[in-house]
């Protein structure tokens, strides 16, 4: 069985690193998603084209390959070295930001055109329109798919263990080598990730209720026990953005 010392020495710091990586890359991803997602609704074709290239590039690459490229190729190419954790955060943030930009674009496109026209009629600037009219109405639409992406991101953080960042997967590998007992370690690790995903989902449900009430919509009603326990929101196309060849909704 895993000894007490191994847990406090390896696992606890690893959990903290996983939390940090998740939070930092989620913040980066949200920024990227909003910037790229808004640019992709621009009127100028060149802006749409360039942001579209960003989207296709980062949706097409594997975040693991990007991570290794940042850590092992960039120092040789540009004589500039990343702290491994920030390379991991950057790779995850840029990739999941690209997925998120599809969510933002879709939600902005779903805001009724009359809302934008009303903003034009009232003499709002483009930025004011976005900030005061379009994003507040699109935001509740974005939360469920963002939840799905956030869980994907949490799962993605396990990849940073491969570039020598001592997250909880890395800690589990150390404990396995040290104690020669793999079953309890990896079971504990899987359960920990699951618990994290569950906590994140609860948080996002609260956020969704808050977002909906702010624009005067009724909160979502969980009808069955299962739908309250389940982690994904089926309505959200978050996984669609993750994979889809452009969502033609």
């Amino acid at each position, binding site marked *: 069985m895993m000894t007490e010392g191994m847990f406090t020495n390896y696992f606890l710091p690893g959990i903290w690193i996983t939390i940090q990586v998740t939070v930092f890359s989620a913040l980066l991803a949200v920024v990227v998603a909003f910037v790229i997602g808004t640019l992709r609704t621009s009127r100028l074709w060149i802006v749409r084209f360039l942001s579209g290239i960003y989207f*296709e*590039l980062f*949706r*097409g*690459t*594997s*975040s*693991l*390959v*990007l991570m*290794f*490229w940042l850590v*092992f*190729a*960039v120092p*040789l*190419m*540009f004589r500039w070295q990343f702290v491994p954790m920030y390379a991991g955060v950057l790779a995850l943030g840029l990739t999941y930001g690209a997925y998120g930009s599809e969510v933002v674009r879709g939600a902005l496109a779903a805001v009724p055109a009359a809302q934008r026209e009303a903003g034009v009629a009232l003499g709002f600037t483009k930025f004011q329109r976005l900030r005061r009219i379009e994003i507040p109405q699109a935001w509740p639409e974005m939360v469920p798919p963002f939840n799905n992406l956030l*869980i994907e991101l*949490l*799962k*993605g*953080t*396990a*990849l940073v*263990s*491969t570039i020598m960042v001592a997250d909880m*997967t890395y800690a*589990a*590998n150390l404990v*396995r080598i040290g104690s020669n007992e*793999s*079953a309890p370690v*990896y*079971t504990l*690790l*899987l359960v920990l*990730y*699951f618990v994290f*995903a*569950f906590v994140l989902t609860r948080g996002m449900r609260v956020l969704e209720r808050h977002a909906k009430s702010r624009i005067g919509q009724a909160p979502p009603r969980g009808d069955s026990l*299962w739908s309250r326990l*389940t*982690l*994904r929101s*089926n309505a959200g196309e978050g*996984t*669609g953005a*993750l*994979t*889809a*060849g*452009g969502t*033609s909704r």
Partner: protein
Amino acid sequence: MTWDWNVVDDFMPRFWDGVLLTLQALVLGSLIAFSLGLVWAIAQRSRFAAVRWPVNIITEFIRNTPLLVQLFFLYYVVPEWGPSLTSLTTGIIGLGLHYSTYTAEVYRAGIGGVPTGQWEAATALSLPRSRTWAAVILPQAIRRVVPALGNYVIAMLKDSPLIAIIGALEMFGEAESFSNETFTFEAYTIVGIAFILIAYPASLLIRLLERRLAITS
């Protein structure tokens, strides 16, 4: 930065070996994901709660935990109890199992989209349950989810480098070992570009498929 084409030439034979392995893992992994996902989806609609609940819990657990850790589990823990498999086989099973929980959701949506009248017609014709599924429901359900299934094949392609971490040398694994031996960076760059070059046309293909199936159905 100096890009050395000689390094690229040296890497190319190993790159093609890796591509072959990636495609192999992708095809076999997809087969597992498509068939196992269907089993999950049908089991989730079972009349018996004793079937529905365990299946729901298992799929939910597999879908919300990292593939990398599942691969470690399959590679290090499973041999303690049962057969020890090669890293490629483990990787394929891991990819297939992980993505089967996603395709299960896709099938579930497809099955849910079949009108109730179809079920009722099957009952009215007193078709046995197996025949209702095989001849009435699934042909209609699967047809409309083909593009969504294709999307998960692309997602699986992007997760396929993870099997290199447990030792299956697909294209990323080849790049990693090549770069470690030669202290070069070209191989990583080439593999990164290769992923985009495979994933982007594939996603265009799926977009096309989506449009075609939408018009005719």
